[in-house]
Every structure is written in structure tokens, then in C-alpha cells.
């Protein structure tokens, strides 16, 4: 962010984060400027003749008319290169750890540090050699940034030609040149490991592809009922206390992604601290390394300057796109887009724009959709010798061919609607764009049913597109089981209406069985404990077995209810059901054997219930229960 600047204008007006400066004829729209003696960073967002409206990303107290404004002549950009992973940046990409070293525990104004550390020496490994033809996006070498992330060094956009020189394997800082490209018009372009990219412009790709692979999250309600595709977009709206942040944290922890970008946008400082403390100590089951080694954090907590909040989601998504362009699958979480929209509203109000709904600017919807539209599964530019030679195309699970490279950016945005009412503008604008809606419900949260995703209002438009994948990769009956689960849950809400009117005794045995199965789906399957070491992540295989167990109980019981005159209470209270309930805590090693055992005992106990009317299994918990009554 340190760029030589020239003085161009003087301040006339200061109103909160909005500054108006005069004599700004030479500046361009969206240029980054430095304001006042403290060199506060701002961005030009409006021009009226020679007057420029500047949104300042830092606290403006102490600024006054007459103070100078300097222009950098460049739009707001982020630095991209080795050193991103495991770091935490503020809304405009400044490194918070480095700022703490310079300025102490509080965020003082005008601290000027590089986003990426210029001292660290990274080991650059070239993969191309002198004379090779290169074009934009080609991987010339890599840095093993963390044990699991190969940070690929790419030819910047709009650079084509031959490699005139390339460094041998060795240690370099991010701003040192590692290669020189001789372009077709005989110009030399020096390539360093560091690139920069304007945050408000999406990085280019060749073509968008349809998202048809699910992003596995290990969260049962998501993977089974409301799956999200890799490259898809999802929204998580919910009132406070309904567990939005826990859902976002769980996704950041367990999502099947190579890189995770987590944007804390206008949320609590302690939540960022929590991620910083916790992620390094969590081991990713897929890679065996700590989660922090694939995570990048962007933090604009609610007490940090509001203008930078507006920029934070763009900073985050630009970093996401950069890793997408390396061919990785990136998952981005933004918590919460409502705070971003409020920041937009605040600036709009200060600009005295004509407000749209609830004071939000009229362009809220278009800004939101252009943000979410930057997600996707895309064919990316450039060649990558690393994947050509032997490496697998991890996204397709097949050997790579024909320079075909894909990158994925999945976006999950939290929305915080006032009072939990999704009829407000931000939720509505979001719902028009996203394909997956995980509606959080405070009533479920009060019952401590987590994740509190309400199955009656949530939806995923990817479910059909993804069904082939599930059928091919998990089990042929996956979609059938899913459909049955859904129908039990909707049946339950119908039956509960009746129960409220006439009581549970008025229901037929079959209906009571359905109610009981729905309860079991809720408590034994959908309820998932994020704090339990086993339950926090459930592989698809196990999810499949869990569904099967619950439905097996239904199928067997249903048959018997129809055939014989068996009391429903007896079926409901067979002791093996407790085991079904605890199946979620079964470790992955014992999965099959445990499943077989439960399935068999289920069979026995249900048959026994039908044969022996006075069925009385000795000292089970259920009989204790009857005796205590």
C-alpha cells in the first residue's frame, strides 16, 4: 500500500468518514488518496467538477479544512503473493499482526506497513525454463507456503511472450524479480512473486462452468438436505443468537476446500480472536495439518472504521479469486453482509443520495449481486506444468489433460436481518441471487437444536444438479433417502397442527410412528454438536448409514403395525433406539460393524415386539422409565 504520492488537493469539508476536497481535477474516480498529515487512506467515490468526495478508511477526527490530499493515482488494490496464508488483514488489506508490532494493542491512525512482509525469504522453485512461451496465468514456479499450500507464481495478466530468464531454485523476498518475460513487441517485463490487483474488479477467467460437484461440509443438515455446490453461493440469514457465526465457523473448519477466506465484516472482535486462537490447533482430517495453514482472515470488527467495512468483502474476494486462478477450490465466508450493506447506507446518507428502501441506497441490489457473481466454478487462464506432469486434477479427480484448468470460488454470506425478519431489503436482495438458503430459526436455537437451520423454510436449488454426483460417489439410494427424510419432516409439521388441536392420542398408530421417526430425524440426525470431537464432522458414508438406520426402523415398524395388532408405544420404546440416537458419536473406524450390529438388533427387537405381546426386555432403560411413572 506504500506508493509515492503527489499533492493534489485540499480538504474543504469533513463529515465523519466522508471528506470533500477541492482542486482535484487531476484525480481519477476510485483513486486511492492519502488525506491530511496522518496520511489516512481514502478512496474517491464521487467527483463534482473539481470537488472530490472521498471515503476515508480510518477515523477522521482531527482532520479539518485546509489539510492536504495526496493521490496515489491507483485504485484500491491488494497485494497478492506468498505470505497471505495464515495472516489476518484489515478491511483494506493491511496486516493486523504487523500493525500490532508497530502500534501496540490499539489501532492508531496512519500506520503505514506493507501488506506482505518484505523481509521473509521464500523458497522459489521454478517449473519453466528460459525460452518457454508464456502467457497470462501460466505457472512459472511455486513456493511451498505451508505444508499443504503450493503457492503458484503466475504470469500477470496481459503479459505474453518468451521467458528471457528465470531464477534457479532459491530464496527470494516477495518483491525481488524471479523471471523476465520478453514480450512480442520486444519489451522486458520483470516478474516478482508479488502482484497487486484492484479489489473492485473481478479477476478474469476464460469461461464459467456449471457447478455440479457438492462442497462437502460434514454438516449433516447441509450435505443431505440443503447441499451447496462447489462454486455456488449460499446465504445464511438469521436473528442474533441463532448460531450464524457457529455455522460459518463450522464451514470454515470442515469444508472440503483447499483455501478458506474468512471475512469478519462488522462483527465482534472476539470472534476473530477465537478463530486466530482455535484454527491453528485444529487438525484438518483430510490433510493432517492445522486449519490455519489454509486460512486467510479479513477483519473489520464492528468498532473499526466503517468505510473500510465496505471495502472488506472486496478485499477478501479478490484474494479468493487469486487462489482460484492457481487452480484451487476456495471457500469464502462473509460474516456478515448486512454490516457491509449498512456501511454502504451510511456512506450513501452522508453523500445525501436519494434513499431507496429503509434508507439503503438504490444500488444495494446491484452491488450485492455483482459481489456474489464473482463466485463460480470457472475455467482459468494459463498452463500449469505442475498439474500436467502427473498431478491430479483434484477438482475432477482424474488426470489432467489439454491445459484444462479449473478453479473454484464458493461464497457463503451471512445476513443479519433486523429482528430476524427476512422481508428487509438486504435479505431480499440476497435471496434473489443465491441458490442456497439456510434459514436459521431462533425457536430451534432456544431448544438448543444446532445447527438451527429450519428445514421447512430452507432450500437448495443445487440438490437436483448434484444428485448424479451423490448417486455415483456415495450411494445409489442417497437421493431417495433424502427425499424420504424431507417428506417425514413436512409430514411432522402437518401432524403437529392436528396434535395441537386434538391431542396425540387421536392419531393413528401409523401417524404416531411418523411423528416419532420425524423426531428421531431431528434429534438423532439433524442435531449436530459442533463441540463434540466426533460429531462435529460427519463423512458422507456415515451420514448415509445414519439415514438408513432411522428409516430402517420406520420400515420395519410400519410393516408390523400394518400386519399385527402391535401397540405403537411398544415399538417406540424398544431399547435399541437409544443406540440409533448415539450413532452420531460412533468413530469412523467402528462405523460398519456398529451399523451391522444395530441393524440386526433392530430387526430382532421389532420382531420380538410383534410376537410377544408382553415383551419385556430385562433392565432396559425404557422399562425403568415406565417403572418411575
Amino acid at each position, binding site marked *: 500500500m506504500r506508493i509515492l504520492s503527489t499533492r493534489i488537493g485540499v480538504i474543504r*469539508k469533513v463529515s465523519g468518514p466522508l471528506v470533500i476536497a477541492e482542486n482535484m481535477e487531476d484525480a481519477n474516480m476510485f483513486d486511492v488518496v492519502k488525506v491530511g498529515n496522518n496520511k489516512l487512506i481514502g478512496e474517491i467515490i464521487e467527483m463534482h467538477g473539481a470537488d472530490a468526495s472521498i471515503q476515508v478508511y480510518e477515523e477522521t477526527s482531527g482532520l479539518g*479544512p485546509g489539510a492536504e490530499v495526496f493521490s496515489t493515482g491507483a485504485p484500491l488494490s491488494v497485494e497478492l503473493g506468498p505470505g497471505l496464508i495464515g495472516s489476518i488483514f484489515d478491511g483494506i488489506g493491511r496486516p493486523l499482526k504487523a500493525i500490532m508490532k508497530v502500534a501496540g494493542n490499539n489501532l492508531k491512525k496512519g500506520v503505514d506497513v506493507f501488506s506482505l512482509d518484505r523481509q521473509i525469504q521464500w523458497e522459489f522453485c521454478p517449473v519453466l525454463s528460459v525460452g518457454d512461451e508464456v502467457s497470462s496465468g501460466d505457472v512459472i514456479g511455486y513456493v511451498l507456503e505451508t505444508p499443504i499450500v503450493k503457492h503458484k507464481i503466475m504470469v500477470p495478466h496481459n503479459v505474453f511472450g518468451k521467458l528471457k530468464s528465470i531464477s534457479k531454485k532459491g530464496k527470494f523476498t516477495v518483491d525481488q524479480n524471479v523471471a523476465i518475460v520478453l514480450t512480442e513487441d520486444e519489451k522486458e517485463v520483470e516478474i516478482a512473486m508479488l502482484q497487486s490487483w484492484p479489489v473492485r474488479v473481478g479477476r478474469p477467467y476464460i469461461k464459467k462452468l456449471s457447478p455440479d460437484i457438492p462442497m462437502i461440509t460434514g454438516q449433516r443438515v447441509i450435505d443431505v438436505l440443503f447441499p451447496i455446490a462447489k462454486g455456488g453461493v449460499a446465504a445464511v440469514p438469521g436473528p442474533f443468537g441463532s448460531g450464524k457465526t457457529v455455522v460459518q465457523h463450522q464451514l470454515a473448519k470442515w469444508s472440503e476446500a483447499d483455501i478458506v477466506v474468512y471475512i469478519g465484516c462488522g462483527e465482534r472482535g472476539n470472534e476473530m*480472536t477465537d478463530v486466530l486462537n482455535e484454527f491453528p490447533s485444529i487438525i484438518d482430517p483430510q490433510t493432517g495439518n492445522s486449519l490455519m495453514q489454509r486460512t486467510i482472515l479479513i477483519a473489520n*470488527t464492528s468498532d473499526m472504521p466503517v468505510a473500510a467495512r465496505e471495502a472488506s468483502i472486496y478485499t477478501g474476494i479478490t484474494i479468493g479469486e487469486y487462489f482460484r486462478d492457481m487452480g484451487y477450490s476456495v471457500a469464502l465466508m462473509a460474516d456478515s453482509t448486512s454490516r457491509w450493506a449498512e456501511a454502504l447506507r451510511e456512506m450513501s446518507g452522508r453523500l445525501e443520495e436519494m*434513499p431507496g428502501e429503509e434508507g439503503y441506497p438504490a444500488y444495494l441490489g446491484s452491488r450485492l449481486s455483482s459481489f456474489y457473481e464473482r463466485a463460480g466454478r470457472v475455467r482459468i487462464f494459463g498452463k500449469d506444468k505442475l498439474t500436467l506432469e502427473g498431478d491430479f486434477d483434484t477438482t475432477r479427480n482424474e488426470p489432467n489433460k489439454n491445459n484444462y484448468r479449473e478453479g473454484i470460488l464458493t461464497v457463503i454470506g451471512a445476513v443479519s436481518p433486523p429482528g430476524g425478519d427476512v422481508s428487509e431489503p438486504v435479505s431480499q436482495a440476497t435471496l434473489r441471487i443465491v441458490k442456497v438458503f439456510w434459514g436459521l430459526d431462533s425457536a430451534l436455537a432456544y431448544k438448543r437444536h444446532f445447527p438451527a437451520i429450519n428445514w421447512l423454510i430452507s432450500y437448495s436449488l443445487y440438490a437436483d444438479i448434484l444428485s448424479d454426483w451423490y448417486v455415483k460417489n456415495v450411494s445409489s439410494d442417497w437421493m431417495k433417502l433424502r427425499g424420504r427424510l424431507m417428506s417425514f419432516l413436512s409430514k411432522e409439521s402437518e401432524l403437529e397442527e392436528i396434535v395441537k388441536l386434538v*391431542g396425540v392420542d387421536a392419531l393413528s398408530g401409523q401417524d404416531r410412528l411418523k411423528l416419532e421417526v420425524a423426531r428421531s430425524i431431528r434429534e438423532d440426525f439433524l442435531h449436530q454438536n459442533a463441540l463434540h470431537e466426533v460429531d462435529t464432522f460427519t463423512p458422507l458414508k456415515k451420514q448415509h448409514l445414519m439415514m438408513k438406520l432411522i428409516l430402517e426402523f420406520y420400515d420395519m415398524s410400519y410393516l408390523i403395525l400394518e400386519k399385527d395388532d402391535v401397540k405403537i408405544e411398544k415399538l417406540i420404546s424398544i431399547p435399541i433406539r437409544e443406540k440409533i440416537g448415539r450413532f452420531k458419536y460412533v468413530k469412523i473406524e467402528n462405523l460398519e460393524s456398529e451399523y451391522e450390529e444395530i441393524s440386526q438388533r433392530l430387526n430382532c427387537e421389532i420382531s420380538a415386539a410383534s410376537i410377544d405381546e408382553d415383551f419385556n426386555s430385562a433392565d432396559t432403560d*425404557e422399562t425403568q422409565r415406565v417403572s418411575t411413572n
Partner: protein
Amino acid sequence: MPREYKTIKEISGPLMMVCGVENVKYDELAEVELVNGKKYRCKVLEIDGTNALLQLFESSAGINLQSSKVRFLGRSMEIEVSEDMLGRVFNGLGKPIDGEAQLLPEKRMDINGIPMNPVARNYPQEFVQTGISAVDGLNTLVRGQKLPIFSASGLPHALLAAQIARQSKIIGTNEQFAVVFAAIGITFEESNFFANSFKETGAINRTAMFVNLASDPAIERIATPRVAITAAEYLAFEKDMHVLVILTDITNYADALREVSAARKEVPGRRGYPGYMYTDLASLYERAGRQKGKRGSLTMIPILTMPEDDKTHPIPDLTGYITEGQIILSRDLYLKGVSPPIDVLPSLSRLKDKGIGEGKTRADHSNTMNQIFAAYARGKDSKQLMTILGESALDKIDILYANFADEFEETYISQKSTDDRSIEDTLQIGWELLSILPKSELTRISDEFLNQYYKAR
């Protein structure tokens, strides 16, 4: 000597326009001097060329456009701080009003504070025992947390807050503990209740009170919580104390904010409150916490009264999005005679999970907490069903749950304001309640704890 201006052009409500000014900065503090020598404080809200828009912190009565003088002080609003603030009473702008000697300041601090770098935060995870079961057992408070009380007119939130202030302690340490109390537009009686309650228990010596009463200028309320929190920050982060800040009532603060916003003719957000209220409230609440390299902590309990008992009103709603949980008081429980009437189901402490368990409270705490929540929720459902259909429509297990809910409200939530329960007591009461239910229902408790603590009735 700063320049004086006699160029007040306009006064409207809490706002004042001064023209022809030079070298004035945004957010700068200024002073208006009346002919009779009285001085009012104000700050720069907007500066446009030579016109400054000022916001008064006090009433505008007596200001004259011709004769009153305005001086810009070249700094933002500051207060004088020292350790001797404890045991003293100040007005809403930080001036002593208890008639005792002036403070000998060790330092002056800007009341707006500076945002904390999230990297410099220490995650709050030390259990604070408040001695109140519904808080300790189910919505545990930890050091450095901001946990508001959502109350409503006529509910005993003052009683609860005073009890927390009196009883709070960290088990097994004897580090210094202080209370900073900010009265924001509350009545004399309520303020006096707190003062007496602190005096009776001797807590007054470790308490600094900042008082803006209902009769004081509404506009001063914008500064009062900032003044109090600044004092608390000084004690916590420079004097290594564990400070509990009680702010009551945030609703009055938000109304003052709305007053200024309306006077500026800003586009209103919901219910006329300004669109930036979230950011503004966050600039208060987020100052709570713990910092790396500092021994002290700043724990905050803001109290707000929900207009019409409505949790979705902008004030509780935005507060809930910023704070780390909420304690909600319920009128239904209060009418039933349950006191403190804490409605535990919608209440929540987000930081509890890291503040409880082995080494902090007890290993079985988390399991029993989840079980009690689930059982109480089901019990309430059963009771609702019972009122519609009658007791005979319930099966046996539902009746047990209904009994659980009743007994839970009577023995667990209800407690006298003098009753200081240790965490062991609270957990013990929890297990006694759970024994109403058969073992097979307790699916959220691991077998180990069931074997150790569960005794069927």
C-alpha cells in the same frame, strides 16, 4: 489562548452552527461561554469550509447569537483519570459531584477510545461466578465479556444488576476487582437504589459512579457511557484491575442519539433511529474485553428496557448482534413470582463454552447445561399442550417434563437477592432436577457423568 468567535448563526435543538471559523478540526471539542460566564461543552459534528456544525452536550438554554462566545479547544473530549476515581461520584461528563475534593489526575484520556486490534485481544475464558444459578449454570459470564440484560418497564433488572455487581468473583484468585457504574437518564430513585446497594455491602469503595439522571440534559447522555468506559479502560488496562461496567439504561442513550440525528435531518433507519446506530453502539460495547500483555479485564453489562417488551425493536436487536449473548427478563415469569425472572431459553452467553468445564467449573457442566435447556424447552411445550388439551391428553413422559419445567422455575431460577450460590450448589440443584426424568431421556449427558451424579427419584 484559542480564538473566540461571536459568530453563532443558528441554534436548533442540540445543534449549533458557527460561521467564519478557521483551523477547526472534525470531532474537536469546543466551549460556548454565555454572558454570565457559564460554559457549555460541545463538539464539531461537521466542518464545511468556514462553517462548523456543533453538537451541544448540555442544554442550549441561555445561548445568545450575538453575545455568546465560542472557543475551539484543539482536542477531542477528554476526562481526567486516576485510581482515586473509585469511591467517587461524577456527573455524566466526568466532573465530581459528591462535594469532595477535586481529583488529582494521573492522566487525561480521550473518551472515544481507539479500536482494539483483534490480534491484540485475549479470548475471554475465565469463569466469573455471579452466584446466580440462571447465569452461572446456563448463561455463564466470563471475564471480558459484554453481556446485556434485556429488560422491560416494571421488571426488576436493577435488582439483578446490583446482585451481580455485589456477588461477582473469580474463584481462587484475589486480584483487584472494581465496578464502574454509569447511570444514563435513569430516575433518581433507581440511581439511589444502586448507590445504597453498593454502600450496604461496602462495594462503594471499589465503585466509580457516573450519573446522568432523567432530569439532566438528554444530550449529555451521548457522552456518559463513553466517559464511564474510558475510566474503566484506565483501571483495567493501566491499573490491572478486573472491572465490571454496568450501563443503565441504553434505551435512553439510543433515544439521545436519535434526537441528534433527527436534528441533523438525517435519513432515519428503523423507528427513526439513525442508520449508523449499529456502528455507534459497537463503538461502546466493543471496548469490553481482555488484551494481550495486560492483566486486567473489562466486563460489560449494559441494561436496556425493550419498548413494548419487543426483542426485535432496533435497540435490543442491534445490541444483540454486537454483544456476546443476552440475559432476557420475562414478564410472564415475573407475574408467576419467579425472581429474578430470567427467561433462560432465549437468553444466551456466547462465550460460556470456553469458560466452563474441567478446571474452570466442573467437567459435567456442559452436558448438564444442554440437558437442562432441552428438558425445559420440552417441558414448556408439554405445559402448553396441557393448557389446550388438559392433563389427560399427555403421556406419562410429557407429564414428567411438565413437572420438570415447574420445579425448574421454582428452585433453579428463583433465588433471593441475598442468596449467593456457588457453582457447585448450582450444579447440584441441576442434578436434583434432572433426577425427575428417567435416565434414558438424558441423551445429552455422557454415561460417565450419569454414573457419577445421577440418582433416580
